[in-house]
């Protein structure tokens, strides 16, 4: 009788941890949420009254980008293709016409912007412009700013702009502030 007495064999729980780990890793990997990325824009507050006509911004400090309903670009009265927009915008922002921006190495043309603090990019589109084109144009303008900031950051700190610390980054962003205006669309043509 004593010989027949059996103790139930213990289940080896050692591999339990492995199984659980496997599940854990599976969930960690599969539940990677698609991080939403996008072009950040700050809209102007709503006002009922139309903006004053005689604003003191000089014509040469505004870089006018028009996009029509056929997704064609008119930049400062010139037809440009989308791949030319970035360098045109860079030249405009970096122009430094009055020489107040000591860090800029622009062309200093009297016909273009005074300095990056005053340079405004005005983006105007038609109601028939496609969203894709709009995003492309928007992207090129933002790209112009980020390239300028990067170049300055490399000259000044020897590192790219995104790797800078908060303080240095605000210095660079202060030299090249982003002034982009999205005007209300006009409706011309279909």
């Amino acid at each position, binding site marked *: 009788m004593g010989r027949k007495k059996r103790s139930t064999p213990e289940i080896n729980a050692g591999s339990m941890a492995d199984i*659980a780990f496997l599940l*854990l890793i599976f*969930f960690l990997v599969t539940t990677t949420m698609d991080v939403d990325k996008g*072009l950040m824009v700050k809209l102007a507050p709503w006002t009922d009254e139309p903006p004053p006509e005689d604003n003191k911004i000089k014509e040469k400090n505004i870089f006018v980008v028009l996009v029509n309903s056929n997704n064609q670009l008119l930049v400062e009265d010139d037809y440009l293709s989308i*791949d030319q927009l970035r360098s045109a915008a860079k030249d405009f922002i970096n122009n430094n016409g009055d020489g107040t921006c000591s860090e800029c190495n622009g062309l200093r043309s009297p016909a273009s912007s005074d300095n990056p603090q005053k340079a405004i990019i005005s983006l105007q589109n038609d109601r028939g412009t496609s*969203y894709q084109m709009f995003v492309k144009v928007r992207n090129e303008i933002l*790209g112009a700013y980020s390239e300028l900031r990067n170049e300055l950051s490399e000259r000044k700190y020897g590192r790219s702009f995104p790797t800078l610390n908060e303080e240095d980054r605000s210095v660079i962003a202060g030299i090249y502030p982003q002034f982009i205006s999205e005007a209300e669309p006009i409706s011309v043509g279909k």
Partner: protein
Amino acid sequence: MALIRKKKSKETPPVSTASLPDIVFMLLFFFMVTTTMREVTLLVRLKKPKATEMQKLDRKDLTTYIYMGAPKNPNIYGSEPRIQLDDQLGNIGDIQSFVILKREEINEAERPKFTVSIKADIDVKMGLISDLKQELRKAQALKISYSTNPAASPEELYKTY
């Protein structure tokens, strides 16, 4: 005394691993619970444009999504691009109250960081987007993000379509 010391030096007691599965399961459940995604079912066709200069939207709880595109079911909703707010298609007039309602949900200290992410299809015309922007301005939701997919290089964007 001598006996105890002798025993100690002889063998280290094995660490009990019996509770390890419990710990790991706890972690597992933690991740399973916290990563529940509140996704809406898309009623519109959505193919996001590509871009290179985007920024990450890191606070999901402070972000409200507005979808735009041609309805997936044109027999019911027609073929013109529409706006989807949460799980239903809305009109331009619904946006203000929708955004204000969403902003009320987050606590007051973080309301300035409230962001509206516009997830629009590439074929949507800017007219509709502009109407949406005007409504957002009226609702004082001024931080917006045009949701995009990453492009491999800027050159990819120059190709005509």
